[in-house]
């Protein structure tokens, strides 16, 4: 798996999403819970806007000085017995991790949730080199058993219900109990416990790496990341190069924003901070620790107008606020990063060719921008993507180009504009019935496929105004 998921065209994915009643119900109710939770948690914290501004400033400062903090981080990790590897792209990251596994003669790898390892397709790479890979986040484990990609960056199996999960467990793991969530979770726990104990390598993601101390911090609710990072002798932490904070002080601010914006919690059940290898006086932790810092297209975003997209702390508040996401679900985006942030990031990381529809999958309602805890102007980035698609990539249709050139002429020539307000009603009269158009021509076709279009008025406003002025003058 890589950033792109599946090979269906955009229109088919949307059709599948809209047609999936069950998924839509699940997404809609989850969005409702997450939104209410976020708003309540923000209110409880107080001064939410000030916190957002602080979050934005921290992320901005960090990105502006990323080289400095990455250097500091790597020095600190190495000072504490760890090894740091900077991977320019997915294949470099995978090759390094495969090599660590080969040297350890590792047969089994357990993982905690990590979007960047999805992005680089790490599981497939490790399986190809003979390792068994077990996801230990409950949602990720379900998806792994089902060979299904994530549809949300925080709750990856959001699109599945308990009956479907029961079926997956029954088919793949011989589960015989009911679809009661407690029984399902207890079963997963029992199964995964074995894997934690047998694993040769533990692989984690990283919510924030603290540069001053070389610490990787994980924000979880299930406790699985602690098992992954304490039981196996070898630990590999994989992080996107932007997931860094200067000091513990900034960590506190960003974790406060993350847990509230993501799930409406003051704090998640576990915040795990891991620094280096096990020391002589310590009882747990890895003997061998590797930090893999992945670029994979990020550094080329720095210095561009899209730089603030790298401020993202992966809370999914924009996804939970997005009304488009609600109706089409995560898989419709065709990227492991769905929703507004996915529509901004995916073309940046993986090019426009396969993702040129994503920037248009938004009404620009700005619910995403409003929800973002670090104030990324997501809807503005989407408009900028559209400009690039039109002006630099030339990926739009000829008919749209002609239409827009006509628009420019129309809107810049008062005489042409005025003529159109006179002619509109007559021009549309062949399709008009009872003052409305139920089946329109050309660009109106899409509109009237879903709803009626009002016929232009008998007398335009400007005509009425002219007559009124005339009456007044007479």
């Amino acid at each position, binding site marked *: 798996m890589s950033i792109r998921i599946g090979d269906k065209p955009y229109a088919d994915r949307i059709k599948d999403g809209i047609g999936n009643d069950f998924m839509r119900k699940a997404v809609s109710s989850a969005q409702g819970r997450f939104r209410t939770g976020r708003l309540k948690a923000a209110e409880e914290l107080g001064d939410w806007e000030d916190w957002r501004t602080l979050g934005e400033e921290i992320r901005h400062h960090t990105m502006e000085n990323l080289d400095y903090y990455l250097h500091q981080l790597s020095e600190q990790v190495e000072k504490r017995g760890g090894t740091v590897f900077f991977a320019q792209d997915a294949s470099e990251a995978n090759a390094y991790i495969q090599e660590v596994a080969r040297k350890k003669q590792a047969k089994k790898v357990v993982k905690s949730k990590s979007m960047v390892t999805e992005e680089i397709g790490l599981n497939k790479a490790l399986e190809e080199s003979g390792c068994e890979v077990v996801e230990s986040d409950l949602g990720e484990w379900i998806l792994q058993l089902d060979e299904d990609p994530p549809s949300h960056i925080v709750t990856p199996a959001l699109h599945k219900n308990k009956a479907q999960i029961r079926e997956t467990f029954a088919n793949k793991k011989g589960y015989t109990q009911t679809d009661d969530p407690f029984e399902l979770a207890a079963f997963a726990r029992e199964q995964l416990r074995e894997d934690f104990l047998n694993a040769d390598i533990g692989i984690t993601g990283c919510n924030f790496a603290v540069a001053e101390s070389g610490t990787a911090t994980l924000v979880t609710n299930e406790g699985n990341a602690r098992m992954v990072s304490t039981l196996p002798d070898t630990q590999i932490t994989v992080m996107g190069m932007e997931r860094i904070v200067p000091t513990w002080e900034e960590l506190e601010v960003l974790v406060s924003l993350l847990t509230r914006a993501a799930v409406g919690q003051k704090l998640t059940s576990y915040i795990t901070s891991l620094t280096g290898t096990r020391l002589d006086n310590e009882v747990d932790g890895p003997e061998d620790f590797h930090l893999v810092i992945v670029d994979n297209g990020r550094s080329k975003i720095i210095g561009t107008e899209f730089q603030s997209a790298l401020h993202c702390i992966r809370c999914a508040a924009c996804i939970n606020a997005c*009304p488009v996401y609600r109706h089409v679900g995560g898989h419709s985006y065709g990227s492991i990063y769905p929703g507004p942030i996915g529509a901004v990031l995916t073309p940046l990381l993986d090019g426009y060719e396969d993702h040129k529809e994503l920037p248009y999958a938004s009404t620009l309602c700005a619910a995403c921008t409003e929800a973002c805890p670090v104030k990324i102007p997501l809807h503005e980035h989407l408009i900028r993507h559209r400009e690039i698609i039109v002006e630099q990539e030339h990926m739009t249709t000829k008919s749209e180009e002609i239409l827009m050139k006509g628009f420019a002429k129309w809107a*810049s*020539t008062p005489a042409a504009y005025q003529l159109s307000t006179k002619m509109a009603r007559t021009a549309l009269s062949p399709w008009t019935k009872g003052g409305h158009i139920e089946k329109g021509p050309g660009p109106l076709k899409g509109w009237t496929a879903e709803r009626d279009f009002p016929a232009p008025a008998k007398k335009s406003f400007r005509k009425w105004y002219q007559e009124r002025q005339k009456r007044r003058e007479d």
Partner: protein
Amino acid sequence: MKVSLFITCLCDTITPDVGKDTIQLLERFGCEVDFPAAQTCCGQPAYNSGYKKEASKGMKQMIQAFENSDYVVGPSGSCVQMIKEYPSVLKEEPGWRERAEMLASKTYELTQFLVDVLKVEDVKSTFKGTATYHPSCHMTRLLGVSDAPRKLLENVEGLTLIDLPEKEDCCGFGGTFAVKNAAISGQMVQEKADHIASTKADYLIGGDMGCLMNMGGCMRRNNQEATVLHIAQVLNSQ
């Protein structure tokens, strides 16, 4: 006070009554309203579709059309917000940025102008019935106008407002989105129409013709009974 009406292309062509009500409302509060005939469209359909170059041509026409105006008032949060963005769109065009800033600084959405500039919260109108109000996204989130329409509607004699469930959700219009992504737009507006129906209100009121045209078109197809009105029509009702 001299005010120039920015009619918006939709109200000009499709719902001229909104323009008439806007003029009469402003005149009731002592404004001298003119209508610069050289105005066209704000440019948003092209700008939001990525055609910045094409959009900017119309924007320059709008800047010229309103160059001599003291205040520019329009019955649409979304179109007014577009004008507010002219300075950033035209920032690299010598001379135009300053002219864009002049226009942006004197342009107001109708309810914003009534409450913030004319300091009127009660327009002394009477309108009998129950209504639900849809706060349009650009007006609320981008232009930051959310209290003004609420205050004005609350003071309308005879009007009972019923809260619209999930009101902050977009209706699915999004300009060219409604055509380009018609299927998604259709689902969004259907959900909105269902919420409107659940209020059992006689009227749906909004401040943006684009959104109202979208919701109204869906409600008509559903045979929903509620009547769709622009806020200017309600505020000018005596």
